[in-house]
């Protein structure tokens, strides 16, 4: 059986060295790692941005060979930026995520993300957290096979951070799809099926959350350890790690 996502030699020059990755349908994968470690690059390479190397196959289709209509069915990408230039109404912004108009899907998203009071407001006038929700809605609107979400939980309050994880879980169960989600909150990472740890431009650990989060690689990458009173900065074993 082949996996839903198969990536060969994907990378971004200077940021992420060539990487292999396979993800099964139904899997919810957390991408963690220190700042600048390559989380965003991994997601961008999978999303096939212009500087992406390697090749990605989703659902047996080589992504680079597909045009917009099919690409929308295969994947969708939510960048980490929450900036919005144009005063597009929230409902219209959600519609950017759909290849063809679908009023019932927009209504469902507005309900799911509790955007009803904001639906007619221009997106550039929302608070950062509200904008984060609307942008997540745009990314999941098209119900693709693979969701690539770069820090969808930052700027969200604790309720919406947990609720967003639930929403992603429901979406991928309904669509038999998969999601790669970069997160900074290590407790939330435990709610995922699998954790990929990216550091120094390579994947240094990949497996079940408890395995990765308690691994030696994890301690080395983050330079923090979990003690009795929560996370603490670990003392450097190797002075070179203090860059």
């Amino acid at each position: 059986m082949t996996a839903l996502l198969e990536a060969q030699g994907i990378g971004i020059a200077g940021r992420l060295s060539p990487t292999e990755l396979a993800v099964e349908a139904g899997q919810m994968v957390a991408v963690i790692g220190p700042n600048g470690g390559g989380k965003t690059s991994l997601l961008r390479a999978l999303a096939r941005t212009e500087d992406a190397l390697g090749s990605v196959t989703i659902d047996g289709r080589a992504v680079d060979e597909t045009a917009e209509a099919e690409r929308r069915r295969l994947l969708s990408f939510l960048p980490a930026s929450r900036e919005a230039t144009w005063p597009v109404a929230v409902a219209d912004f959600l519609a950017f995520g759909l290849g063809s108009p679908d009023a019932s899907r927009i209504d469902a998203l507005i309900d799911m993300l509790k955007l009803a009071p904001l639906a007619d407001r221009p997106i550039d006038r929302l608070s950062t957290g509200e904008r984060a929700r609307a942008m997540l809605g745009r990314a999941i609107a098209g119900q693709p096979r693979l969701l690539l979400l770069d820090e969808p939980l930052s700027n969200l309050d604790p309720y919406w951070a947990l609720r967003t994880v639930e929403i992603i879980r429901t979406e991928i169960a309904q669509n038999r799809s998969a999601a790669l989600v970069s997160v900074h909150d290590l407790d939330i990472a435990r709610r995922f099926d699998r954790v990929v740890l990216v550091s120094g431009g390579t994947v240094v650990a990949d497996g079940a959350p408890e395995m990765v989060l308690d691994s030696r690689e994890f301690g080395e990458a983050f330079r923090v350890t979990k003690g009795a009173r929560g996370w603490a900065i670990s003392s450097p074993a190797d002075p070179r790690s203090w860059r």
Partner: protein
Amino acid sequence: MRIALALLLLAGIAALHLLIPYGSLEAARAIDPGLATTLLVELRLPRTLLALGYGVTLGICGAALQALFANPLASPDITGSSSGAAMGAVFASYWLGISSPLGMALAGALGAGLALVVLLALAGRRTDKVALLLAGLAVSLAAGATTSLALALAPSPFAFYDAFDWLMGSFTDRSLGQAAAGLIPAALACAFLLHRARALDLMALGDDVLASFGHKPRRLGIEIVALSAIAVGACVSVCGAIGFVGLIAPVIARRLTSGHPGRALMPAGLIGGGLVIGADMLVRTIPLDRAIPVGVVTTLIGTPIFIAVLMSMRGRMAS
């Protein structure tokens, strides 16, 4: 439906532009029906077509450049491509001795393209608004100064006087051939730009998302810049620079398309056409024995609107 209504309205304004003042047409027909036709087709038709076409071009190019730069201040004049086109046309006519309408149009497009390439190199795409504004200002000033220098040192001592007539924007005494040389390249380039309207809407999500949809943002950017340069360059080389229409028309158009930058291309074109043809009618009805350049009128009307846009942007950035 709304577009059809707007088209009808624009066609009406164009017909008025063509027929007013009607008295002189009547008088000409009284002398000789052929004379009236000549007056209409040889003198007035090029003027109407150029005013309409140039305005539509400015609106569409302005909307496309604003969508590309993700910036409501981008436009053919603020990005320096109008000044660049004027520079190209002045060099071609006063230094290289080119006088064919098509050669002039080509020179204008090359000048506009050069200005946009320098702008991209200075400011980069998707840069912050202030950097774009300053880089565009620098390009405009440099192109303007070069144009003045080229005129001052031109072999013909009358270059300044000649050039004033069209550098400030004028539609008087253009032939059908000149109209064709300016408008055919502009129309083709605008058609290609309109074809990219949907991709420009998606560009609102950022280049990475656009790429994830299977588009090529970098190539799209170069295409938009090149097509705008061709369209504006061809028009400027025939009619001179007309300020602010390319800035304001898209701003008004986006109010009608609820902020969608790509969907605003067509409405921006229609609004631009209406603005320029209206300004030209105003210029023509002012009872003076000399011609006022139409570019002066659009700039006079446009400046307060530009300031209003700047003020509203400042309010938004503060909130």
